[in-house]
């Protein structure tokens, strides 16, 4: 089922929010107010399209560090994200323990991930196994970069899901680079979706700059998984428009022309054009939306800046759980 007009606007609003927040993070970095940012610019369509294909809050997600738009779609607030950037005490990911964009949002069933890439893929397989063992009506969605699918852990994860027909959606956000390394040095296949055939499950490739195409592809896979037909690998292809992170200097390994060229397929431009075509978002409606978003972000920045840092000694805990919080 295609998204309703309201849903479409919602999707676009989230993409725009993610973009503006991401841009704001870069500004904070330039201002020396934060030490690190890893950007999701260019990835918004893939993430929002996927998020809207699951039952947010009920289904499970094991994300990776580029998933700002996905996390916003799952209900993380801009202030929460910004507090994470600043290492504030009450940021929900880790209470200031992890670097920014190392997500966790318990209330949205979005699991804490670490920096070692591909570990989250295996957790998704395990969550899928648990869903199946319990007979629950849920799926789990997990994301990863294309470079990280070179890890044996990714292969082992997908293999479990394939052998046991687990309700897992493995999304590969192929932005064509792993820091400086181009995808053809990671894999000898054209697309990470091609890897699925070697593991015995469907592999789908979709334009990751087209939010509605992504939504459709992921929705199909989710329906399949929920119906007991097992896992799918989906490659969403886009381009990493920014440097890898604020620590990276991408001029050492790619030309400005290449980057500019790729900016033309900005997922926000594409989505906005579509909504305009469909008469859902006029120029002035867009301006209003953008103004609103920017204002809400400024509000959130103030809130985040005013929030307290943790005291040093808080770092002593919690090494061990006293009790399991969930059922």
């Amino acid at each position, binding site marked *: 089922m295609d998204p309703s007009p309201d849903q479409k606007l919602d999707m676009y609003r989230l993409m725009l929010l993610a973009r503006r927040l991401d841009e704001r993070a870069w500004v904070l970095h330039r201002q020396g107010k934060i030490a690190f940012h890893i950007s999701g610019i260019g990835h918004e369509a893939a993430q929002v399209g996927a998020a809207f294909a699951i039952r947010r809050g009920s289904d499970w997600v094991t994300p990776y560090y580029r998933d700002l738009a996905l996390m916003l779609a799952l209900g993380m607030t801009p202030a929460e994200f910004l507090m994470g950037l600043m290492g504030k005490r009450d940021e929900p990911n*880790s209470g200031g323990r992890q670097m920014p964009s*190392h997500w*966790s949002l318990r209330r949205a069933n979005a699991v*804490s991930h*670490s920096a070692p890439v591909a*570990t989250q893929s295996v957790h998704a*397989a395990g969550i899928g196994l648990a869903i199946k063992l319990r007979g629950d009506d849920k799926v789990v969605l997990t994301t990863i970069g294309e470079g990280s699918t070179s890890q044996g852990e990714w292969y082992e994860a997908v293999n479990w899901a394939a052998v046991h027909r687990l309700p897992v959606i493995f999304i590969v956000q192929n932005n064509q680079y792993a820091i400086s390394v181009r995808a053809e040095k990671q894999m000898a296949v054209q697309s990470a979706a091609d890897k699925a055939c070697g593991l015995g499950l469907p592999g789908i490739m979709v334009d990751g700059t087209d939010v509605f195409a992504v939504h459709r592809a992921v929705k199909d896979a989710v329906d399949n998984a929920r119906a007991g037909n097992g896992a799918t690998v989906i490659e969403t292809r886009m381009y990493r428009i920014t440097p890898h992170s604020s620590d990276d200097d991408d001029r050492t390994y790619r030309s400005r022309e290449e980057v500019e060229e790729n900016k033309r397929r900005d997922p926000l431009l594409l989505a906005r054009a579509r909504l305009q075509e469909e008469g859902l978002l006029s120029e002035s409606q867009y301006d209003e939306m953008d103004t609103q978003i920017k204002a809400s972000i400024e509000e959130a920045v103030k809130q985040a800046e005013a929030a307290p840092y943790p005291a040093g000694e808080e770092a002593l805990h919690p090494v061990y759980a006293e009790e399991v919080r*969930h059922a």
Partner: protein
Amino acid sequence: MPEMTLIEAIRQAQDEELARDPNVFITGEDVGVRGGVFRATMGLYDKYGPNRLIDSPLAEDSIVGVGIGAALYGMRPILEIQFADFIHPALNQIISEAAKMCYRSNGEWTVPLVIRAPYGGGIGGGLYHSQSVEALFAHVPGLKVVIPSTPYDAKGLLKAAVRDPNPIIFLEPKKGYRLIKGEVPEGEYVVPIGPARISRPGRDLSLFAYGMMHHYALQAAQKLESEGIDVEVVDLRTLYPVDKETILNSVRKTSRALIVHEDNLTGGYGAEIAAIIADEAFTDLDAPVRRLAGPDVPAVPFSHPMQDWFMVNPEKIAAAARKLAQW
């Protein structure tokens, strides 16, 4: 009370925990129909079926990673690593993920799971079926490391491990699987994770050991008794977190400490115990803190003369203790 072997106690603990809690399941290589290569799950597949005893693909990292995912969802996995020597492919999931999940999510996510692995030499297993791996884990905050040496403790500690909200490394001295027998109550009891146990009180010297070496330590103590040396033997049982109190109290009483393990000497677990004593019981010591351990070669060789050369045994322990008592 019925007498049973170490492996029977381990099987019984798993049987009872599977019966008690529907969230408990077991996965690993050959744990299903085969009942495990050491028979630790013998008969359980027939009793609980393929959803509770799951033959995993041959991939240890994913056994642990899938276990983590399932634990996040609320299950209580018991993960069997066929030999401790094969735990190395899983170290990333154990050290980077299981151990750090609670801390990094500020307690939002926890991973209650047990990783069982047979360890230790003297069984003709050569380099890769004889290794001791406790030192790898007894340095990792977030993990608990447990090594039972009696059937009673094995059952009680394993049941406690399954119920603990944290990831537990449960290492079983495989040479003792059938060799070590003891009384085990039917049904419900747990042995708390944490406290060491004074298995033989004495006044002249404290002998710290665990696993198979604890039995050898008792044999050595008995031998020395006839020579008029009164050895206190401490079964460490929980290696991490360390039970400093029991250790220090013992040394304060005897003023002499010998630590025994079959793992390599340098950087082995004994170093930590020695370091604690050298710091916190310094003024109580009447002699150097001694360690008796496997030599610093990669692992236990296969050929019998070389295996015998490698292994710590009651005679070597008695000799080291005698020398220290006479220091």
